[in-house]
């Protein structure tokens, strides 16, 4: 026994146990295996690895190495079915049966055959491909054999060692003829082996396998018998197995409701093509984030920030609004443009997308069309509180709007080398909008009728946008050093034509008409905007953890416009010089700054300072030659400090804090001294004296997770205040005609905090998420020359329960209570308290016979204490559906929306020194039957998607 242990050595301790075990179980004795390894010339193969394997599944039992004379020995092998496998670099592994009931085995000299030098050189060394041996046949991965683009498999085969292709296309492998070619194990176009090799593109092949059909199943053991012919199997690359999906949903309902939605998409590793189309008058756009991903493919997530560099990794910069008509809206925001459930909508959307991506070049192009129609008949009740009196406005309006947009985006990204990337983006858009607005509005002063206005406005807008950007990103050999630079030019043109008709009747305190103001105008306006931007960024590592980031931003925004206002006096059109304007505005912005960033293992701390200069120049005329009515010429500058911290050093904890200061330049509409009299009771003026608004914000966020117990806690807080806040100055005359002018006024303090916790009561069956959100807003404005301070305190606790007791049943409950207190120091008797309580239930279940139920019930209770008003709106939607057809490719659904007929498009709001309530005629109860066809099959799931 002692001797045995020594001989085995450490490695075979377990073998020893095995031996003991087998010794005790069976009375069969152990045996020895030995042999001498030589090459075909009789040279000993030294230090080659010899493996002792289980015959059944080639599990390794032990291994040894051959000695200087090529000899090896396994001692004390328990009786059983074994294999000995010898390996030596450059030689075919030799596998021999080593089963024994206890008799020693001596193979004597075992000759190993070299793998052809050509194979070793070409397959292993040059192509770095794995080589697989079955007995004495060899198989290898053909992916790495380079052939010119457009080559066929036949061209590829000519390059592979061991394979010959005859002039007639017939193939020989290892001197034997290949009589069968399969693709992914399946026969390709019948039995002619040449069909596949002549027709398939070489770049689509991942693997070429040549084997004797008979020995295919013999993977491990020695090949027995030789076949006359060989089979060649070609495996396709994963990327050439293209994917794709698509579905179409059509529904028809009562109340003339209908919807149709379809998408289709096809892709492989390099190309992605997709289309989507939606038409409905149900107000449900029906396009989800999944649909967006299906449509945009690899372009769904845009990681670059648009190139407006700043302190952080992302551009921390001024941006300007979408502009009237929303021409600057991008495709993503159009895609998700959902109606708010008010009014009667009719929408048509659709687009095409094509992406190309081979590691070096990325091209994506997308076209999207949208048409949105909305008919809204609204009733509004607005109270405004002034010093000493209350103004009440009671109005009804009908808006009939239809807008259309064509948008296209093209992106080309080229990797020049591993360090340099160039990118070119182009956007184009064309929009038009047709809007008719009719309204009647009664104004009361402390419940006494003061004026009635009737308005009819018709507007037609059309416009186009061109936007091009060239961007460069460069990294350097020195790690952490990088730079970016870009230039862009945006140009938009908008044409408006509108007619404006209004009658304003003014009454005295006894109800007698004292005045009538008539407006009958036919107007047009041309607006042109050009924005040129240039940005640069450079990051230099100061140490391995410390980086200096410097940036420069330049922007020149030029806007010109011609606004012609013409009075229609009994059919005679006369130009109104007091309201007509031409303008030319130019805002040049320069910013440069630096920040120091410490970043190391979960801590990113950044602090910096920037200096910015605004140069505003403008002039306006009434449109007549040499009639400059005013000019603007203003310069101002600010220092912009920045601090931010991201901390993820501690396991399961994340924390971030930041202080940001930003400047926002005035909207051009606000800067222009233009009179907007679309609503005769509410006149808007421009203010050429407007300064940029500076905002300061401190944000804090922290979250803690306990993944094992599925608990998540988060805390969020923010405080912000302004300098030169954009506010308004309102003047209300004795006839309650309000004139409003944008001004810089007040500091607009806002602070908010929220916290949430989610935890399971029973894991995966019952989880709870509870949160509280609170908000304190202080706003300032000028009303009739008096400062008005509005304070609003909001708090909203909410709870959500996810109850999923089984795969066939789910219940989601959410409840929230929103309490909002608004106080007005101009008139504190008008202090408001509004409450919204919401309760939502979603119940999904699998019923009998493959039928599923999906239902949601939402009640919203609105309450305003001061007006003693209460509004309860319960909305019930429910549907049952069932899949059918083989592969569950189709689904039929019966649905009812707003079963109680309660949707009145209600909203209530308290803002500034006003309180409003509004209802809009909206889609109420309807029934719908819809059919879905999905080429990949439908999946019925009673559970909502989990994002974690």
């Amino acid at each position, binding site marked *: 026994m002692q001797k045995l242990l020594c001989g085995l050595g450490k490695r075979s301790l377990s073998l020893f146990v095995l031996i003991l075990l087998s010794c005790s179980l069976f009375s069969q004795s152990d045996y020895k295996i030995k042999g001498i390894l030589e090459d075909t010339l009789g040279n000993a193969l030294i230090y080659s690895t010899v493996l002792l394997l289980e015959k059944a599944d080639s599990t390794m039992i032990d291994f040894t*190495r051959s000695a200087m004379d090529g000899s090896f020995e396994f001692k004390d092998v328990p009786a059983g079915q074994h294999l000995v496998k010898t390996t030596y670099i450059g030689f075919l592994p030799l596998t021999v049966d080593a089963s024994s009931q206890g008799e020693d085995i001596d193979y004597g000299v075992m000759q190993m055959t070299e793998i052809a030098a050509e194979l070793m050189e070409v397959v292993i060394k040059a192509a770095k491909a794995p080589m697989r041996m079955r007995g004495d046949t060899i198989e290898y991965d053909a992916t790495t054999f380079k052939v010119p683009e457009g080559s066929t498999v036949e061209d590829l085969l000519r390059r592979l060692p061991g394979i010959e292709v005859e002039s007639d296309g017939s193939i020989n492998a290892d001197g034997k003829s290949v009589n069968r070619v399969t693709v992914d194990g399946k026969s390709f176009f019948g039995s002619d082996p040449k069909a596949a090799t002549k027709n398939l593109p070489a770049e689509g092949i991942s693997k070429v396998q040549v084997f004797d059909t008979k020995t295919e199943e013999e993977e491990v053991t020695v090949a027995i018998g030789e076949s006359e012919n060989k089979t060649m199997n070609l495996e396709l690359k994963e990327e050439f197995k293209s994917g794709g999906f698509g579905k179409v949903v059509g529904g028809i309902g009562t109340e003339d409701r209908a919807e149709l939605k379809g998408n289709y998409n096809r892709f492989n590793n390099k190309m992605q093509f997709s289309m989507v189309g939606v038409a409905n008058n149900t107000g449900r756009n029906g396009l989800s984030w999944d649909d967006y991903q299906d449509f945009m493919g690899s372009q769904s997530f845009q990681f670059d920030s648009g190139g407006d560099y700043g302190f952080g990794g992302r551009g921390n910069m001024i941006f300007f609004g979408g502009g009237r008509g929303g021409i600057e809206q991008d495709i993503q925001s159009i895609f998700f443009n959902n109606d708010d459930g008010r009014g009667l909508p009719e929408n048509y959307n659709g687009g095409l997308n094509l992406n190309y991506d081979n590691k070096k070049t990325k091209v994506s192009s997308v076209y999207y069309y949208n048409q949105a129609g909305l008919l809204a008949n609204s009733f509004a009740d607005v109270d405004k509180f002034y010093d000493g009196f209350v103004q009440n406005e009671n109005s009804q309006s009908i808006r009939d709007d239809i807008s259309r947009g064509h948008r296209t985006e093209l992106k080309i990204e080229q990797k020049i080398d591993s360090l340099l990337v160039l990118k070119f983006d182009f956007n184009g858009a064309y929009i038009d909008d047709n809007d008719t607005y009719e309204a009647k509005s009664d104004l009361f002063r402390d419940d006494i009728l003061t004026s009635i206005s009737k308005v009819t406005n018709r507007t037609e807008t059309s416009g186009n946008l061109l936007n091009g950007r060239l961007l460069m990103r460069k990294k350097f050999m020195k790690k952490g050093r990088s730079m970016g630079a870009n230039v862009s030019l945006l140009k938009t043109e908008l044409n408006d034509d509108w007619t404006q008709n209004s009658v304003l009747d003014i009454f005295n305190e006894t109800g007698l008409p004292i005045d009538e103001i008539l407006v009958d105008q036919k107007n047009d306006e041309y607006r042109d905007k050009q924005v040129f931007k240039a940005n640069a960024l450079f990051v230099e590592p100061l140490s391995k953890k410390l980086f200096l980031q410097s940036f420069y931003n330049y922007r020149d925004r030029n806007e010109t416009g011609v606004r012609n206002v013409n009075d229609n006096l009994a059919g005679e059109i006369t130009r109104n010089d007091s309201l007509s304007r031409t303008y030319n505005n130019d805002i040049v912005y320069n910013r440069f700054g630096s920040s120091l960033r410490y970043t190391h293992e979960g801590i990113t701390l950044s602090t910096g300072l920037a200096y910015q200069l605004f140069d505003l120049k403008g002039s306006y005329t009434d449109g007549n030659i040499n009639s400059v009515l005013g000019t603007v010429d203003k310069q101002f500058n600010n220092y912009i400090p920045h601090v931010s911290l991201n901390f993820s050093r501690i396991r399961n904890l994340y924390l971030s804090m930041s202080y940001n200061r930003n400047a926002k330049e005035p909207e051009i509409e606000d800067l222009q001294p233009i009179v907007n009299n679309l609503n005769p009771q509410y006149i808007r003026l421009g203010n050429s004296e407007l300064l940029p608004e500076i905002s300061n914000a401190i944000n804090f966020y922290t979250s803690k997770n306990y993944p094992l117990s599925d608990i998540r806690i988060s805390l969020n807080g923010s405080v912000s205040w302004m300098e030169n806040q954009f506010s308004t100055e309102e003047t209300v005359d004795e006839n309650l005609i309000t004139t409003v002018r944008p001004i810089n006024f007040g500091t607009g303090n806002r602070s908010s905090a929220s916290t949430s916790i989610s935890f399971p009561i029973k894991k995966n069956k019952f989880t709870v998420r509870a949160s509280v959100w609170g908000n304190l807003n202080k706003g300032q404005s000028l009303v009739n020359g008096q400062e008005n301070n509005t304070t609003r305190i909001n708090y909203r606790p909410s709870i959500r329960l996810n109850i999923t007791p089984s795969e066939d049943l789910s219940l989601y409950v959410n409840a929230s209570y929103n309490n909002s207190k608004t106080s007005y120091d101009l008139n504190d008797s008008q202090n408001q308290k509004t409450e919204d309580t919401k309760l939502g239930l979603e119940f999904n279940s699998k019923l009998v016979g493959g039928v599923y139920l999906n239902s949601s019930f939402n009640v919203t209770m609105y309450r305003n204490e001061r007006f003693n008003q209460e509004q309860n709106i319960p909305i019930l939607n429910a549907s049952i559906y069932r899949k059918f057809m083989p592969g569950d490719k189709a689904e039929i659904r019966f649905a009812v929306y707003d079963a109680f007929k309660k949707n009145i498009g209600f909203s209530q709001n308290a803002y500034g020194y006003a309180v409003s309530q509004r209802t809009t005629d909206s889609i109420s109860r309807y029934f719908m039957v819809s059919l879905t066809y999905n080429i990949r099959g439908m999946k019925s799931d009673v559970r909502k998607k989990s994002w974690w």
Partner: protein
Amino acid sequence: MVVMGINMCIHNVIQMKNKQIRMYTSLKLSIVALFLCSSFVVDAQVVEGMITFNRKTDWVSINAKLPYVSSEEADRRRLTSGNWENKGTNYELSFKGDKSVYQTKKEESSGTYSWRKSKFILVRDYGKKTKKDLREDAGVDMLIEDKIEKTRWKILNEIKEVEGYLCMKAETKDTIKGQTIHAWFTDAIPFSGGPEGFGGLPGMILEININDGDAVTVATKVDLETPIEKLPIPKKMKGKKMDQEKYNSIIEKFIAESIEGRKNPFWRIRY
């Protein structure tokens, strides 16, 4: 030549074995040269060095295999993020004598943002057959101290080159994570260890491929020249102490619960 030191001889064997791959034509010469070495060579297993590995995880493929993910959802993921660049994570395996340590390589910051890296240190003592693993899974630092369990390796008939070394293929299964693991090992580095805690083969493992490419750990640099003074085993290895069995049961439960709750368990545990 015959009186050459053992270590030198070993070195020669390794070097020559490598050269055989690089210059196959000189194979015969090498064999002749080998005859000149002392016969001690075969039993001596002293080798030391450091191997850098890169591990890439294919989230698209892992996601596609989760039981609750429909083929459409799997395709959507491939469509959206299939072409995202994946640079992987680098690890270092230092080995000397019969001990090794495998851990995340400390990387220089790229200057943009820095995330905390999960703790991952695997210490092996093949002499004493013991291991000490510190790993962060399911949000918990776990310190696993146990015997090295014997891996049942099947030896397959495939060879390929990894970082200049000719490797053979072996296969094993992880029943807890449902993985088929392929290891490519070379007998030119006579150390029965490897990356990701795998070992027990007749040579160093230079590549671990889990489930046909879902996670591939491959050697990117093999340094057998620089002597290892002392293995860089961190002094502080703090975590919840447990044995392998306990660890396995935690992981098994976590995977089952995550899948039931339709969450990808491998966001929280190492694939």
